[in-house]
């Protein structure tokens, strides 16, 4: 059970990020979470959206470099130590997290962490063994 994340390659030029958000707005796509990784010359914008296919099509059409990445969305308690517990479940099994970012949604007392990891089946198994709640794409879009 994984989620599609949309990744966009962005040159460090003024107005590029604004163009992404405007394009998504015009396509009626709602951004649920995002993270931006940057270097001196460029950045990579990672997005969790309600309509990934529509988002990718719209961005590609206006000339952005877009890729889809499989990520895992895990619900965690919104309190000190919540993220540590989730990370611990994965690292204890020797799994290597490429990157993660979290957001606090409108889902009771819980927050959501998005995890990118190379070994998805092992990660899902490790999370489920410790009864972590992995969100489906449908659940995620309702947040």
């Amino acid at each position, binding site marked *: 059970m994984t989620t599609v*994340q949309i*990744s966009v*390659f*962005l*040159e460090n030029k003024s107005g590029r990020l604004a163009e992404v958000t405007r394009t998504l707005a015009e396509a009626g796509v709602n951004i649920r979470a995002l993270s931006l*990784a*940057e*270097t001196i*010359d*460029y950045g*990579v914008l*990672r997005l969790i959206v309600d309509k990934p296919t529509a988002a990718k099509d719209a961005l*590609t059409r206006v*000339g*952005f*470099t*877009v*890729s889809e*990445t499989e990520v895992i969305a895990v619900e965690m308690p919104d309190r000190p130590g919540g993220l540590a517990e989730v990370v611990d479940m994965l690292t204890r099994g020797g799994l290597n997290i*490429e*990157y993660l970012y979290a957001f606090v949604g409108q889902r009771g007392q819980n927050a959501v962490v998005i995890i*990118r990891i190379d070994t998805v089946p092992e990660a899902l198994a490790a999370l489920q063994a410790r009864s972590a709640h992995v969100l489906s794409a449908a659940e995620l879009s309702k947040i």
Partner: protein
Amino acid sequence: MEFMESSALRALQSKRLRDAVKRAYERVPHYRAKLDAAGVKPADIRGMDDLERLPFTTKDDLRETYPFGMFAVPMDEVVRIHASSGTTGKSTVVGYTRKDVATWAEVMARTLAAGGTHRGDIVQNSYGYGLFTGGLGAHYGAELIGASVIPTSGGQTQRQIQIMQDFGATVLCCTPSYALVIAETGKEMGVDWDAMPLRVGFFGAEPWSQTMRAEIENALKVHALDIYGLSEIIGPGVGFECLEKTGLHLNEDHFYPEVIDPATGTQMKPGERGEVVFTAFTKEALPLLRYRTRDLTRLIPEPCPCGRTLRRMERVTGRSDDMLIIRGVNVFPSQIEQVLIGIEGTTPNYLLVVDRKPRQMDELEVQVEVSAERFSDEIAKLEAVAARIRAGIENALGLHVSVKLVEPKTIERSMGKAKRVVDRRDLGQ
């Protein structure tokens, strides 16, 4: 020789041309085939007036006969081999007999003497020593004059300046951009250039401008003279400026210049701009007939106030092909393309941006479009792609470059053919 009457010079050139054509025809099968194809026999070439009947020689001829196929002497007469990077991975190889090395020393001695270099001078030679002809070319010329040569080669600027100060260098040989690096680094080290004995510098191996000359002269307190050469003809020493600084005298008793229309191959009228072509008629190991340099310039018909009768050529301002010269290294965009084709995660769409920031060496930035299909969203993987490109180019060209990943389709495409090069260096007159 440098002040020879022009009719006597013409007679000498005619004799040397006849000899060169005969030697090339008899000893180089490639030339025999070329001349036969053009329907020219050595006996048809009686003097300089017949020069235009000869076919051109190009870099392709050297490539096809790589490495030694154009040599007109057996290898046991070749005492030196140099090479420069070629367009398709194979280098351009040049050979010298003992007499060629002596000719080279002679033309470089003229070059250095034209700027006032004499016995007793201390010549710091910061051209690179190695396959590149710059270092050894200047070295032998300075030795022939009887000056004391310090073979520092390039790099280690602070140490260079220390040596320059301690040994009391009076003459400097290096690329113009390196001269500015030396000036700036020296200033940071607290060197007072006014108080240094340095008097004159011979700068070449890359294009530069009058503005840069003023900058170098102002910073280093020297006469900054332009020198011209290419390894195929001999290396540095093909042309040199005298202290009039009004164009490069060509050593035309050895290297005969013509200026042609690069599109049609016909000779331009005297003084018109075009591509300069040289016939290296005294070279024993590698005689070249009408070698196309791809350098754009013009010959100056008026005599020079210095009295030398050797004709002058204007500073080279461009190329009739897409070759770039960066820090003395010849770079063809096709070489970069070859490297990119072998690297996953990029497209072969690229742009070369050459820049010369104030008081710095020329820099080449390679902008490469990220492939939409293979684009990784992990910075570490993208950085690894950039590092592979950097290493690949350094391996192929021996040149450090910076690599910038850019969005696809940001690189301008014009008329179906992409614009590959942006040269931001000020290379105007």
